[in-house]
C-alpha cells in the first residue's frame, strides 16, 4: 500500500486549514477552491497568497517521505509572474502562518519553477533535507500571481506537488 497524501490550504485570519482541497484556483479572494471567473484580478494587481501544505495522512507502510518538489507548468496569462517561497537554495525555513494578502507578498519572492527542480524546494520541519517517517505535513508553500497592468486574461495551468516515498 502506498502512502496517502493530500494538499491542504489555510485561509483567513484564524488559520482555517482545509484538508484535501480539489484545486488551487487563484484570484481576488482569500478562499480555497475559488471560482476564478467570480474572483477576477484587476490588471496590475495580485491574487491573494496561497498558503498550502503537502499532508501525508497515512504512511501506508512506507518508511520515509522526503525530497518535496513543487512547480508549475503551462504559461500564465499576459506578463503575469508567479512567485513563491519554494526554492532549492537559501531556503527561508518553515514560514509561520500569516493571513493571506493581495499586496506584494513578502514571503513569496522568487519565481515559481516551470519545470521539475533538480532538488527539493519545499522543506519539512524547516529544512529541505527534512523527512517524514510518520503522518505529518510539509512546511507551508506560499505562492501568489502578480499581474501586469497590460494583462487582459488569466490562464489555466497545472501545479505539481511531488515527493519521494521509500518503502
Amino acid at each position, binding site marked *: 500500500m502506498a502512502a496517502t497524501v493530500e494538499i491542504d490550504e489555510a485561509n483567513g485570519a484564524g488559520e482555517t*486549514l482545509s484538508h484535501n482541497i480539489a484545486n488551487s484556483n487563484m484570484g481576488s479572494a482569500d478562499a480555497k477552491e475559488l471560482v476564478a471567473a467570480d474572483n477576477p484580478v484587476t490588471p496590475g494587481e495580485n491574487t491573494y497568497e496561497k498558503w498550502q501544505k503537502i499532508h501525508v495522512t497515512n504512511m501506508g507502510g512506507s518508511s520515509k517521505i522526503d525530497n518535496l518538489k513543487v512547480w508549475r507548468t503551462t504559461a500564465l496569462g499576459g506578463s503575469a509572474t508567479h512567485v513563491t517561497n519554494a526554492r532549492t537554495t537559501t531556503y527561508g525555513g518553515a514560514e509561520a502562518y500569516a493571513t493571506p494578502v493581495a499586496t506584494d507578498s513578502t514571503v513569496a519572492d522568487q519565481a515559481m519553477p516551470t519545470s521539475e527542480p533538480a532538488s527539493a524546494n519545499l522543506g519539512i520541519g524547516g529544512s529541505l533535507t527534512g523527512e517524514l517517517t510518520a503522518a505529518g505535513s510539509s512546511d507551508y508553500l506560499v505562492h501568489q500571481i502578480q499581474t501586469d497592468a497590460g494583462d487582459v486574461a488569466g490562464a489555466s495551468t497545472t501545479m505539481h506537488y511531488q515527493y519521494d516515498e521509500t518503502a
Partner: protein
Amino acid sequence: MATHKCSPCGSEFKTEAEYLEHACEKAGGAKPGTADFLKKTTMPHYDKVAEAAQKRGAAKVK
C-alpha cells in the same frame, strides 16, 4: 491554533486528529488516510496514479 476543516464534506474539527478520525459523508464514510477517501473525493484515478508512480519509482531505483 488552526481550525481543521474537511474540504469535501465541510465538517470542522478542533484538531487534526479529529479530522483524521471522521467518516466523511462525501467519501461514503471513508476516513482520511485511506485510499478510498481520496478515490471518492479528489482523486478518482488514484489507482492509475499510484501504479504509474510506483513504476517511475522502480525505474529510478534501477
